[in-house]
């Protein structure tokens, strides 16, 4: 019984971690290469979730919804890049924080104008609504399995792209030492455009996939942004591998904090104290992890910039 619960929770944590990775990968590449801190990354996630929910309801096809969500979000990101991000490259981080915080305010209001202030229903694809018995005695929602598989596939594809292609080599060169990469003839600016759009596509994909299991609502981008930034910082800025390891770590720690610590507390402490402390551990676990990592490794686990 406990073993099965354990496995179920670990799978949930893994799924959450993979979604965080989709967000953090785009963030860390943009930050690693162009040194732009983009708080509006969560808004792209929100855009993906809303567009996917709308497209799914209208077309009835989940696959089509994902494609549409990614396309629309990439177009939005292109506009954002041309109109704003370009002007922020050479600016300090404070200006970037402010401008992209401004984008959050604008994005939230535009979404409210289009879809209204209340949460939108994102349907679970009909074919995936039932549970599947992975091993005897553990029925697991099939939709969550799709998220796991999807997240893993994308992570693998990204790993191949970054580590085993010429483009990936240039990306890594730009992230670890931009001036040197430019001297060697890498057009870092152009690579960045591609990376920014790729990051937007990944954020939209995460939003589209997460939509059916979280509430699709205004502000969902801000909620997921902070964990994604935590992943980026734990992993070390500019390192996709670091983002991957950190995302899984955060997913795991989050699960432990959410599922096992409350159980342990209930077993050892008086019920009311346990009920008070349980949720606290759940929420605080990943931040505590980040602070501990930073105390020992002030620039993250695998910082691309040594």
């Amino acid at each position, binding site marked *: 019984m406990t073993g099965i619960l354990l496995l179920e929770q670990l799978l949930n944590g893994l799924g959450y971690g993979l979604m965080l990775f989709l967000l953090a990968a785009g963030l860390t590449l943009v930050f690693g290469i162009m040194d732009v*801190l983009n708080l509006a990354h969560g808004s792209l996630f929100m855009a993906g979730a809303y567009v996917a929910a709308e497209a799914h309801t209208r077309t009835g096809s989940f696959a089509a919804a994902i494609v549409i969500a990614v396309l629309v979000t990439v177009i939005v990101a292109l506009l954002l890049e041309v109109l704003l991000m370009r002007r922020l490259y050479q600016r300090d*981080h*404070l200006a970037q924080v402010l*401008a992209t915080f401004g984008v959050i305010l*604008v994005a939230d209001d535009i979404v409210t104008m289009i879809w209204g202030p209340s949460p939108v229903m994102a349907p679970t694809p009909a074919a995936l609504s039932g549970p599947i018995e992975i091993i005897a005695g553990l029925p697991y929602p099939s939709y969550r399995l799709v998220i796991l598989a999807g997240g893993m596939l994308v992570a693998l594809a990204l790993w191949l792209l970054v580590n085993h292609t010429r483009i990936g080599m240039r990306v890594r060169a730009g992230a670890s030492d931009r001036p040197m990469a430019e001297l060697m003839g890498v057009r870092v600016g152009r690579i960045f455009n591609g990376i920014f759009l790729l990051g937007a596509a990944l954020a939209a994909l995460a939003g589209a996939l997460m939509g059916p299991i979280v509430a699709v609502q205004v502000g969902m981008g*801000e909620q997921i942004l*902070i964990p994604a930034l*935590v992943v980026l*910082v734990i992993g070390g800025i500019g390192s996709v591998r670091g983002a991957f390891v950190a995302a899984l770590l955060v997913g795991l720690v989050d699960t432990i904090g959410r599922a096992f610590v409350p159980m342990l507390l209930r077993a050892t402490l008086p019920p009311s104290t346990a009920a008070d402390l349980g949720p*606290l551990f759940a929420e605080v676990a990943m931040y505590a992890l980040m602070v501990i990592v930073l105390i020992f490794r002030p620039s993250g686990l695998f910082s691309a910039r040594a």
Partner: protein
Amino acid sequence: MKQRDATSTVVLAIVFVLLAAFPLVAPLLGLEFYIGFVRRVLVVALAAASLNFILGFGGMVALGHAGFIGIGAYTVVALSDVGVMSAWLLWPAAALVAGAVAALVGTVALRTRGVYFIMTTLAFAQMLYFVVVSLRRYGGDDGYTLPARPTLLPGLDLADDSTFYWVVLVLVSLTLLWLHRATRSRFGYALMGIRDNETRMRALGYPVFRLQLVAFAIAGAIAGLAGALLAGGNGFVSPATMHWTQSATLLVMVVIGGLGRSWGGPVGAVVWLLLEEVLKQSTDHWHLPLGLLLIAVALWAPKGLAALYRRRNSLTPTLSPEGRGGSRI
């Protein structure tokens, strides 16, 4: 120089008198509602000034300042809950607890640089946020309604909005003046020296870490005091005060008012809250224009409104490359 100081003294005196007269004049103009609003602006201005102290003068881009405001407010909640009503105890306690927490946070955060500093301060603020959310005794997510306004002196009824307003005005003014003096002290100049060139200051023998830590704790303590005043004024405290977007908004205010400018924090707070109030009354979609304004400020007026009004003798900050959260973090 002398003359300029004299002019600013006169301007400050006029502002103070106008603010002091407001509760007397407001009822005549049918603006009683705004007594509470102006009081809130005063308190937020104090919080913004405390952030400007470490951000503008100290070069530390801290993205968790609302956490300390919340600690101050929740200190008041905790003490009121056990029946303490005297402002003489509540307000210093709020400042002390917030200052102590800020010192702890600073001890860890100041070891990191750049964006890691931003994120560490944010992480601590998030942890504090979730701590108060989990405090069910104090209302958790729903917040906590204070039994009454604190008591200060016999004969001084803080439950009266005008009286409370004047007390806040005096307290905020005194603290702002003290903070202003601090930036012109040896300590303040050392802080700005560290902001501009940390390596050189270290070479000159300044205890860089200790100076920054003290500044961080002072800013936290003043934010805590602001939190206590907010709690007293509203009679209600909720975790929303500590949400990270509130910390970001404080950063916004400081930049709009002018980083490292005297009175930059208060000016930014006044401008931002006034705009917010006006926009809220004219449209449901008031985030959009504020967001656009913010983008415009970040792109075209990074030194804030104060920079539009030229004053060459000001100590214009340029966040140095090695600054905490400075330009090339």
